[in-house]
């Protein structure tokens, strides 16, 4: 009899874990919102929400690209360095006007993405190794182009960083638009389907005649381009180019957002809604701790706890 109930309990626990994996992140966001409403003074203000949203935008944009990479059973560690490269390129090309500078930054991201993709798809290097190489090389290049911090004084950039439409900052609008585009691409396009198939079973995808290499290259190009856009937006917001520190540890935040959002590290599935919520969750967590005067190192510990929880919920659920 006890054994019978044991069987039920395992089944129930499996169901619970699945729910936790799929919706836990949304629940987490709601809980943090409610808790802050009650315990944090001045939390419920339009101004505060705007600040939070603006801060989360770059992380979210990077996480979108990361979600694609992880969905293809890969990872992109070079995103933080791409942001740094992006900010250096902006300073370098600002003389030609903000548009040209932004374009140069995005092209830089695409080039890095191509390099990642080529190493992975043609040379067959493991994604973690290939993108680690470009993580190191990217930051190095950024520092060669712009050895130290430099102010960005450009009205166009300033407007991008702090302007808004009907009270919604440009940064937030851009991040939301990109999230919608990526979600659409994943769900509705041939590329999206092929990406998931490749992430789930590479040999099967190859034998089914899918253009495996092309898809992989596009994935890393997207990731690079998105990270570069995040770099542009962060530069505009800070009105400064700081290739030494911009984007450091960004890859970790992005991976956390993706994994917490319910995208498994083993590939074959991408949850964009969850990724958005995951980015918001991390942001709220950080704010909560800061507003209650806890040292920043606590944020990292909290982040670690959340990752462990997410990975636990997502681990290969027992097949029993």
């Amino acid at each position, binding site marked *: 009899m006890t054994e019978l109930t044991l069987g*039920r309990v395992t089944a129930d626990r499996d169901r619970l874990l699945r729910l936790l994996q799929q919706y836990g992140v949304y629940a987490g966001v709601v809980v943090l919102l409610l808790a802050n409403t009650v315990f944090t003074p001045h939390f419920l203000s339009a101004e505060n929400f705007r600040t939070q949203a603006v801060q989360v935008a770059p992380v979210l944009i990077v996480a979108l690209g990361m979600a694609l990479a992880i969905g293809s059973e890969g990872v992109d560690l070079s995103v933080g360095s791409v942001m740094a490269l992006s900010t250096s390129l902006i300073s370098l090309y600002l003389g030609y006007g903000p548009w040209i500078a932004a374009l140069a930054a995005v092209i830089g991201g695409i080039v890095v993405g191509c390099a990642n993709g080529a190493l992975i798809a043609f040379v067959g290097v493991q994604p973690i190794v290939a993108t680690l190489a470009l993580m190191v090389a990217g930051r190095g290049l950024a520092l060669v182009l712009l050895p130290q911090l430099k102010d960005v004084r450009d009205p166009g950039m300033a407007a991008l960083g702090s302007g808004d439409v009907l009270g919604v900052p440009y940064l937030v609008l851009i991040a939301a638009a990109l999230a919608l585009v990526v979600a659409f691409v994943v769900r*509705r396009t041939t590329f999206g389907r092929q990406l998931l198939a490749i992430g*789930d*079973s590479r040999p099967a995808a190859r*034998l*089914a005649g899918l*253009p495996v290499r092309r898809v992989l290259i596009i994935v890393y190009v997207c990731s690079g381009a998105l990270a570069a856009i995040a770099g542009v937006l962060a530069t505009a917001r800070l009105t400064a180019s700081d290739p030494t520190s911009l984007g450091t540890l960004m890859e970790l935040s992005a991976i956390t957002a993706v994994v917490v959002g319910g995208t498994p590290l083993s590939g074959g*599935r991408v949850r964009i809604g969850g990724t958005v919520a995951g980015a918001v969750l991390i942001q709220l967590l950080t704010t909560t701790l800061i507003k209650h005067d806890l040292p920043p190192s606590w944020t990292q510990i909290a982040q670690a706890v959340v990752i462990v929880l997410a990975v636990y919920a997502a681990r290969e659920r027992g097949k*029993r």
Partner: protein
Amino acid sequence: MLSVSGLTKTFPGVRALSGVDFTARAGEVHALIGENGAGKSTLIKVLTGVHRPDEGEVTYDGSPVRFATPLQAQHAGISTIYQEVNLVPLMSVARNLFLGREPRGPLGLIDFRRMHREADAALRELGVRVDVRRPLRELGVGVQQMVALARAVSVDARVVIMDEPTSSLEPREVRTLFRVIRMLRERGIAVIYVSHRLDELYEICDAVTVLRDGRVVHTGRMAELERLRLVALMLGREIGEVQGEGLTKFSGGHDAEAEPVLRAEELTVRHELHGVSLSVRPGEVVGLGGLLGSGRSETAKAIAGALPTDSGRVLVAGVPVRPGSTPAAIRAGISLLPEDRKAEGIVPGLSVRENIALAALPGLSRFGLVDEGRIDRIVDTFMKRLRIKAAGPHQKVGELSGGNQQKVLLARWLAMQPKVLLLDEPTRGIDVGAKAEVQKLIDELADDGLGVLLISSDTEELIEGSDRVVVLKDGVVVEELTGDAVTEDRLMRAIATAPAGTGDPDD
């Protein structure tokens, strides 16, 4: 010896087993039979601790047991060959054979010498000669099955369970397997045997249990159950209906003068194929005969661009195909149903629907956007025609029964409307009802001008299905049987004869 009562197991959305009673006795071979998705593999997995039952009791050797892991079951003396070959592909044959019980030397290190010697002896006894140091992955599915068999019988088991052990075996290996089973039976071991090949069941089994939709619909002596009645029980139909339908075979009418739709010229792959040439005309089904490792799967893969060739070329309707590229071959109209469906076929985490549409996607999209409506229609058609048993089109393929996964793969390639279809063991693991349906479907496609290259270890299917049979041996075409010469006897003789230039007649 091993029995269960009132066993129930549900998966989300499916009741795989309900109230199953089943007993395996010592010294008896017990057949477990049923349609794809009837619950055979699930029952076995519950017996061996892979799945945990929702309700019911397992009794082993007179006392109730519940194995928490397959390892526990193994230690208790239940040894299992699972349907999907469950070995470690990167490890050597010998390591796989002795996994978890490697012979140790004085320092507690693995004694590789002894392990290799013993592994070699164990396989030789089963008539398999391979270099036991090679990684398992390099061998065909058939040899892998023999390794799994050797592993299962070399432990001191009291119950041996075999889930479709013969699906990739040649007649010769099947004989060996049966010899082993008889030996087990004499030793008083209980054997549970799952297969879709009825002949085998009648030959080797003493008792039979028929499952349908997770319920036991019959259990009794094998010899007392008439063949037609067995099929009727399995499919849940009247005997008359089954008889009326018969078991459809390929009919294969075609124009002998027509330009070949597929021509392979002098395909050479180092160590695998040596100048293999063959052609297939529209509407024709060409069989590839030969033993395990004779190069049949390699030929199919080389034609489909999945195996890089050193020389030779492939033409579809007279137009050369870029070699070594699967997408190019597919664009030219060549589809390959691969042999190893688990590793190379299905995408387990995606739904039935996505899997069926996978290869045909570019054709089902406009400007890179997927046309959901058309996919729904195609998926619906094939799920009905092939009787794919799933909770719905959105169920993950990894959760389907083995035979149903095979059907999903078939649907994927049929949905491509190819010009040439290369089928490597197309009906492996498929139940009798669906087998007839698959053959009928292939026949219809052949009428529309499709050329089919058929590989099957089921000799009967090969002989009856093919208009011509090209016989391979050691990567060389040794004979081509046409017309009245397409008989089992001639095939056997062609296989047995050594080709000119090769010294070893029984390799």
